[in-house]
């Protein structure tokens, strides 16, 4: 016997945001997406829809609509959180798999379950709804031997619905034509034909539809008449490259922790190799004695599966950023990418091995900080001495010819200075590294920009000759803060 259940979370993005608190769930609510100034309503729930709030509005418009009726209470609005949505979808899949091993993922908040062969398939719908409600999400479940009918039922019916085989045709008859999986062109044609319901479409002969829509016509005709022979695409859980271990005692030192780390890490590396993958990133989640968790991450410049190297890198990371508390357990997760073995060029200089390079970079990060290791990239701006650090990739490095014979060393961070001025020119400088009378100066070099941001920038700079050398002096405007920003070699 065939039987399917469809699970739908209506207005999924809103439901995910609202599941934080039951008290919120009755409120008119919306989620926004985009970045200012282009922020729009992405999705609304039924309560918000009833007061005239629609997708595509601005928040101000939505608030305006809500305020028109001088309604009591509040309109709940929050930015869309795609990570939470993915997490919620994962949870839904897990719950569904507890009901049936065969689940089809049909998109955000929509799952189809194959109930055939279950000991008590007719109660599965109720169980599913119950489990999903426990997650804080409002579930709509429909069961039927016809998948299309089940999926369509969740669009129009709340709660748990069961459609018996003899009811399928009658149920589909009055559904709006939009429930059919139509592409835009087909939908337009059916509208031109004046068809409003699935029943109206089902009355057209399959042959005449095939003559007009090809194979799609035959497929749609079958769906509309209650036959659904499309393929069930069962979802498979992605391979996990994760290992956890709980310790019997609290670990406070790095050496024993490294020892305990070695086994789960070895397992993860083995899994990676079995799947032909390598780790691009290793995440470490440490369970601390006070119950909190501490997250650490190691980004690799080259995908690796070498257990020893990875262990070294994690050690370096933990030694650079110690937890500060005793550790009771850990979870190691590798982010996989396909592994590629490269043939080295016989005629070019050999490069350092990826493993050694990774360890070296790891050591550097330990010494100077994570954010200070990588490849510097000049930003396209007039703002002086601004650069960004991009991921270090030796393949993209190019030999660049120096533009000037005169070297300039930047002080990072710039050194605060006190400056005396005469006729808008610096005449005396004092700072912690150098001071004294200005013998010669050139400038000011004026620069300002990013005026369209709240925080624009404006500087005036001078090259000043002091008794110890030639320095670049910068005055930040309008605060009139002086700094030495570098010295010429």
């Amino acid at each position, binding site marked *: 016997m065939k039987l399917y259940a469809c699970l739908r979370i209506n207005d999924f993005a809103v439901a995910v945001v609202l599941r934080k608190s039951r008290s919120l769930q009755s409120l008119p609510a919306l989620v926004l997406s985009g970045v*200012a100034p282009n922020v729009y309503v992405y999705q609304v729930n039924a309560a918000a829809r009833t007061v005239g709030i629609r997708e595509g509005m601005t928040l101000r418009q939505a608030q305006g609509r809500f305020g028109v009726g001088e309604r009591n209470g509040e309109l709940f609005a929050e930015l869309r959180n795609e990570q939470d949505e993915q997490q919620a979808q994962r949870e839904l899949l897990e719950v569904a798999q507890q009901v049936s091993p065969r689940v089809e993922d049909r998109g955000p908040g929509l799952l189809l379950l194959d109930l055939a062969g279950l000991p008590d398939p007719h109660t599965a719908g109720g169980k599913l709804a119950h489990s999903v409600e426990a997650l804080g999400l409002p579930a709509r479940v429909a069961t039927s031997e016809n998948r299309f009918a089940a999926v369509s039922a969740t669009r129009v019916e709340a709660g748990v619905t069961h459609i018996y085989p003899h009811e399928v045709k009658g149920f589909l008859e009055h559904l709006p034509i939009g429930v059919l999986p139509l592409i835009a062109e087909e939908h337009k044609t059916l509208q031109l034909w004046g068809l409003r319901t699935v029943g109206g479409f089902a009355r057209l002969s399959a042959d005449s539809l095939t003559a007009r829509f090809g194979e799609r016509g035959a497929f749609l005709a079958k769906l509309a008449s209650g036959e659904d022979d499309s393929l069930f695409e069962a979802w498979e859980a992605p391979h996990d490259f994760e290992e956890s271990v709980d310790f019997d005692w609290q670990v406070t030192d790095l050496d024993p922790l490294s020892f305990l780390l070695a086994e789960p890490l070895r397992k993860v590396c083995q899994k990676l190799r079995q799947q032909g993958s390598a780790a691009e990133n290793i995440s470490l989640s440490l369970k601390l004695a006070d119950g909190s968790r501490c997250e650490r991450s190691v980004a690799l410049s080259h995908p690796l599966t070498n257990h020893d190297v990875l262990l070294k890198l994690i050690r370096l990371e933990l030694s650079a950023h110690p937890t500060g508390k005793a550790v009771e357990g850990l979870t190691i997760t590798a982010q996989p990418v396909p592994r590629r073995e490269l043939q080295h060029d016989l005629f070019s200089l050999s490069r350092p091995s990826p493993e050694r390079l990774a360890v070296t970079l790891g050591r550097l990060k330990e010494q100077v900080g994570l954010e200070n290791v990588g490849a510097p990239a000049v930003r396209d701006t007039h703002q002086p001495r601004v650069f960004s650090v991009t991921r270090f990739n030796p393949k993209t490095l190019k030999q660049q010819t120096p533009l000037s014979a005169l070297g300039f060393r930047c002080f990072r961070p710039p050194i605060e200075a006190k400056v005396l001025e005469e006729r808008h020119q610096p005449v005396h400088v004092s700072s912690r590294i150098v001071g004294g009378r200005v013998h010669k100066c050139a400038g000011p070099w004026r620069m300002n920009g990013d005026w369209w*941001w709240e925080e624009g920038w404006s500087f005036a700079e001078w090259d000043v000759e002091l008794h110890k050398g030639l320095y670049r002096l910068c005055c930040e405007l309008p605060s009139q803060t002086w700094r030495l920003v570098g010295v010429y070699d």
Partner: protein
Amino acid sequence: MYAELHTASAFSFLEAASLPEDLVDRAQELGYSAIALCDRDGVYGAPRFYKAAKAVGLHPIVGCEISLANGRRLTVLVENRRGYQNLCRLLTRMHLSSVKGKGRALWSDIESYADGLVALIDDMRDGDRICSIFKSQNVYVELQRHFRDGQEAENQARMDFAGCHHLPLIATNGVRYARRSSRQLFDALTCIHHKTTLDRAGQLLELNTERCLKSPAEMTRLFRDVPEAIHNSMELSQRLQFTLEDLGYRFPRYPLPPGETATSYLRQITFQGARERYRDSALKQRAWRQIEHELQVIEKLQLEGYFLIVWDIAQFAKRSSILCQGRGSAANSAVCYALGITAVDPVQMELLFERFLSEERGEWPDIDMDFPSGAKRESAIQYVYDRYGKHGAAMTATVVSYRDKSAVREIAKTLSFSEESIERLAKCIHYMDATDDGEHTAEQIRMAGFDPTQSRFRHLARLSREIQNLPRHLSQHPGGLVICQGELDSVVPLENARMPDRRIVQWDKEDCADLGIVKVDLLGLGMLNALEECTAIVNSRGANFDLAHVPPNDEKTYKMIQAADTIGAFQIESRAQMATLPRMRPRCFYDLVVQVAIIRPGPIAGDLAHPFLRRRMGREPVTYPHPSLIPVLKRTLGVPLFQEQLLRMAMAAANFTGGEAEELRRAIGFKRSTERMKLIEVKLRKGLRANGIRGEEEERIVKAITAFALFGFPESHSASFALLAYSSSYLKAHYPAAFYVSLLNAQPMGFYSPATLVKDAQRHGIRVRPIDVAVSNHRCRVETDDRIRIGLNYVSGLTATSVKKIVEQRARQEFRSIDDFTRRTQLRKQELETLAKVGALNSLGEQVHRRDALWQIEKAWRSRGPLLESLEEIPEPSPLSAMTPTERLDADYRGVGLTTGPHPMHYQRNRLRQMGVTVAAQLPTLQNGRPVKIAGMVITRQRPMTAKGFVFLSLEDETGVSNVVVRPPMFQQYRSLWVSEPALLVNGIIQKQDGVIHIRADDAQSLEMNSSTPASHDFY
């Protein structure tokens, strides 16, 4: 002292941020005596720069930044007229040798045209080349200091170069904006130029705000180590004496028959024309005297050539059977009438020649000629090109500026607003005022659903206001042609227009007029197309109608006009005109002349319309400011309505000559100079006193003249329009089928949409037949005297090629079925669908309805493969049900933009009747002041500037049109309802006055229509 010799204005198109006038204002504030404008690849801003500089006593130097083929630029300044002519020719060669905007100069071009130009070297790579082309005294090495790191090294290299070549240095600031505050706008323009956003523009943007106009003292301080660079700027500015005052423009000579002079030939053809015009007229003697007077003035001003050239164009039109009529002040001239340039008899109308031409004024006359829009006008333009050569004639330009929506769109893009946000903003921005303090713009942003206090919205509001009126690009004027004796490209640079075979000058028509360049306007007028086609249709159906001899004083025509049944009639069809016609009740041609003039912003704002109407209806006594003005104001019942009357009043009461009177009108009308106005007022008062008019009478006359000079409308212009208004009304009254067909074929034009014209036709007993591929032609046509057929060109999305295919295939053999039609015409699916939707395929089968057709074409358009291609499909019966009436209506409006079936309100009538709604046709039977409820589709919305915030809506139902007046508070309160709802239900009070009915709205609500509706014509 210092002169700034390198300045760019917004006429460098996105490469600078200030208008020429702003640069001049700032230069004056800073105490400059000379300044040079060097826009990119043109002298686009030079006339405005010259005019502004002249007004404040600044020496305006002409210059240009020329784009070179090597990608760099060369800055040149004009030394003398020869240099200016060379610059114009160089720019013309550059522009005409490439597509619009892509012109680059070759060194060989510069070599040919270097004489009289001074070059500034700012790029050492071109230094040697420039030195070899220009004379050594005409080359300077340019230094600029923008407080930019590294710039000093460049300057040092330049100084070394100058030293090696013994060249003088010159300091400039490479000005891109007048004031520091405009730098942000300049950055925004840079983004528009490079099609990027401020967030992404990076180093394309300015480093700092130093490229503004700095004071001479600041520049002197900046270059204190090279004082000669400052000194040289002043010295050079004194050497560059050329200004646009000395253009050397000459109007072309007309090629005369042997033995004739321009004077003798003009006399000959004028009197020859006059003999025909006044063959049996009682006015012959007066006409002869007037023509003689006019010819004498023309001869004195040596304008014979101009009249001959305009006559030549009119003759070309006549030879080519193109309807053509002069309008504007030329209609005051009996010579123009005799030459066939204008159609109104100024002698009979007692029009004043001096309004057109006078000895004192010393300006070129302005003749505008109307041609049917489209190909016929184009042939007249090409005739002028052929006759005066490639470089002898060109169209004037139109400067397209950033306005309202375009300003918001462009600035929003630079600020990284999404397309969706931009669309939303553009919908809500109706107008922006550069002088607005920001509150109005903020309100409009709020209306679009955004928060105007957010940083980006504040920038958007401010920059959108600042960019207002800045030139965006140059386009061609619809009809202004300038012609020159010899080469026009030595007077102003020419460039290619986007249209093939069109060249434009770099100046707009006002610039040309200001610099004394004669232009002839060859304008396109949709009504002339309509009249021409209507005449042809009428005559093809056996009538003998001649537009030049429309029967005057036709009772049926005037009766129709008096009843305001004037939808489609030229100039008297608007809502405001229709609301005046029952009061005015025109009975003769002159009444129509007044009618055309009275509903204008001027007479309404000047409160002249109502006193005239009251006097005409006998509700107010006719009085005159002074007895001497009775002959002048008698025809308009003591109320001055026309500009010509102002002139005559000054002539009659203050002994002004015609020319002086015109000077008075211009002085007052354009407020050009308060000093000039004062002088002329003194003269006016002196003249009045000389005639014994003093005290109160004097004040009354001075006040009358000065007040209405701002508002008066030219009588001659009005008379030319009235002629077309009468002709079109006559055709509507006598040949309605042909009239409506010609109007529908001349669209877009006029005040109403085709949907409204069709409904008006139906109310006049014309049966309008829908589009049918079996019988419809490309354009609408008359089938019988009371039946017309809509043309295939009205089908939305049907290309001209497809229409041609349909008509050609039908001519070969009638279509047997939809399958046959689809196979033979090979139209796109979308075109077939639209034809089916609007019922145009219904006749291709037995009892085929629209959905049958849709069912069949869905199968027919699919390829059946080569083997079955030639077999005709046997139509299978469609299982689909026919469209409901409202579905048909919806399909009609979406697919054709009009319906030939019942009016959309017809389907609402039962419901509306229950709600107590009155139809438009019943309104005349109701009592004044009674509450009434009306409903209809909004066909026009108007918010005239003169109406103090009142809004006027025309609602159409199946019985006619009713007019709604919305008071300002009500409009503000329900703005989106009044502005955007396609159909309304209005509660209000009926207001009836002299046969004119308005509903004063007290309340309104949106009316659900169940179908789409045609777009309204909105004017606000």
